């Protein structure tokens, strides 16, 4: 395996400054500070590496950073999104716990490249252990003169602090996160204006995922070409896949983008008990499910999954074997989005409730034949009608389950029981 974000994992105490420095940690920062590398050069390197956002949307990181470089006086911020809450996703937690210094180095470089004055690492409230690891690492970095005023005597000042959430999936959405960071409830903001223009405290801000930021030092160390060629054109580098569900060896696998699903499944020990594969959600529970026939022929990268009718999302690969009741699976997923809708937009607040109630009644043998079309209709009416993408996150699973497994829902309604088990 090629480790980028998990490159300290072989050590007993991978989170220490010594462990990180022993794999070349902070060398890139030292070089940049010494050479005063032009910001454009760093940003171009990320563009050439084809690094795309690891938080779910896959937006090219270099392009995102270039929105920030327009001259603007005063405070500018870079914020790390460590809210990781999309069901199935558990990759950032391990970067925070096992390689916090690499995230910190990535953030300082991001701050430098975008001309930011400060940064915050917003960590979800439930992350007790990860928070402690990041906080300790940050104190070590400060003591070593790597963060703060006049970093490594370069004249560059960059303040970096941790911040904490308190239990709300919506705060992973970047503008809700900014409101939360301001001490408010996590309601997403209207866009435009985008955070690059009006972000934290009304100042230009860039929000990036943990894995995105932690990839930066390695890209700049080994070069854009190296990173790009790990993956595929337009899908550069490695990606951490959280493989969970019905596999023998669930876990986080950091492997090149474009790995065939078949190989990834093998890495994760194959389907449990030698069972037959039924379906896979390839990118966290909000992404469209794919039946076994399709996913077995698909490569795991942004573009291939899009072509196959789903999305890479957070690369949380949820594996379901032949014993899985698809109605029950969707009921579980739809309940989450109902619970976590922030309630700001009517289509999402009301629609997620309707979706869950209808799926719940089908699961409990009280479904009606017209429910199937109604589910699709309600989902369609949420999509595109909300301030943030939680609406889509709730609607897409419904659309895809109905597209690929409609018969199973119909069976449930007709026979008042599961097709399986």
């Amino acid at each position, binding site marked *: 395996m090629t480790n980028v974000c998990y490159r300290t994992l072989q050590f007993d105490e991978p989170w220490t400054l010594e462990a990180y420095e022993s794999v070349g940690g902070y060398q890139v920062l030292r070089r940049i500070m010494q050479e005063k590398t032009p910001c454009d050069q760093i940003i171009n390197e990320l563009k050439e590496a084809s690094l795309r956002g690891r938080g779910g949307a896959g937006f090219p990181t270099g392009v995102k950073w270039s929105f920030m470089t327009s001259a603007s006086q005063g*405070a500018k911020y870079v914020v790390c999104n460590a809210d*990781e*809450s*999309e*069901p*199935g*996703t*558990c990759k*950032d*937690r391990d970067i925070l716990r096992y390689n916090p210094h690499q995230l910190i180095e990535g953030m300082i470089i991001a701050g430098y490249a975008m001309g930011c004055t400060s940064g*915050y690492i917003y960590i*979800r*409230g*439930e*992350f*007790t*252990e990860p928070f402690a690891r990041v906080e300790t690492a940050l104190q070590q970095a400060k003591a070593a003169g790597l963060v703060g005023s006049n970093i490594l005597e370069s004249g560059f000042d960059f303040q970096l*602090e*941790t*911040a*904490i*959430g*308190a*239990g*709300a*999936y919506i705060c992973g959405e970047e503008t809700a996160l900014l409101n*939360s*960071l*301001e*001490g*408010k*409830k*996590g309601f997403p903001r209207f866009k435009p204006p985008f955070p690059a223009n009006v972000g934290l*405290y009304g100042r230009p801000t860039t929000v990036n995922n943990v894995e995105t930021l932690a990839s930066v030092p390695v890209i700049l160390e080994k070069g854009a070409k190296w990173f790009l060629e790990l993956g595929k054109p337009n899908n550069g580098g490695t990606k951490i896949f*959280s*493989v*969970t*569900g*019905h596999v023998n060896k*669930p*876990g*986080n696998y950091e492997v090149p983008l474009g790995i065939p699903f078949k190989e990834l499944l093998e890495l994760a020990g194959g389907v449990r008990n030698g069972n037959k594969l039924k379906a896979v*959600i390839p990118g966290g*529970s909000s992404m469209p499910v794919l039946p076994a026939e399709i996913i077995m022929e698909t490569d795991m990268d942004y573009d291939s999954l899009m072509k196959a009718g789903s999305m890479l999302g957070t690369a*949380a690969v*949820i594996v*379901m074997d032949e014993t*899985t009741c698809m109605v*029950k*699976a969707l009921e*579980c*997923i739809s309940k*989450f989005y109902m*619970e*976590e809708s*922030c309630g700001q937009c009517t289509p999402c607040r009301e629609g997620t409730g309707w979706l869950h109630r209808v799926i719940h009644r089908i699961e409990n043998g009280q479904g009606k034949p017209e429910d199937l079309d109604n589910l699709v209709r309600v989902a369609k009416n949420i999509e595109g009608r909300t301030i943030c993408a939680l609406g889509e996150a709730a609607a897409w699973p419904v659309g895809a389950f109905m597209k690929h497994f409609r018969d199973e829902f119909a069976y449930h309604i007709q026979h008042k029981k599961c097709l399986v088990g």
Partner: protein
Amino acid sequence: MAETELYKLTETMCGEIDQWIAKFPPERKQSALLASLHIVQKETGWLSTAQLNAVADYLGLAYVTVYEVATFYSMYDLQPVGRHKVHLCNNISCMLNGSEKLSEHVKAKLGVEFGATTTDGKFTLKHAECLAACAGAPAAQIDGVHYENLTPEKIDKILDNLD
């Protein structure tokens, strides 16, 4: 408000809150609100109105601002809770790996439904949303600590060891 007089933040709390205030620009004390509520909640496991008001006064915020935040986030308890908080994840990866059976087991063991506290005031049982521990499903958070790959036997041991 009469209630605020009933509660005074301790010196330790104020010290910890001050450290959080220092992380943000001076005119942005509100940014320390979420952390402040966590700090005060450590005392009894939940937040009373008097405590919310005390935090509001300390940060110079309107009471309603603090109520709005305290009611929005799931980690704040605004009703008395048991000495130990047991939060079981029932999201998709955990569900696929037997979280329902585990939930039934814990409900029977403690004799309470989700959202309730045992009569002896020892445990409050709740659902957790995905804890980002999905590769260790089924997962739970108990008193702020993650537990993974749980089985009925394993969680019995954990719960039996709490006083």
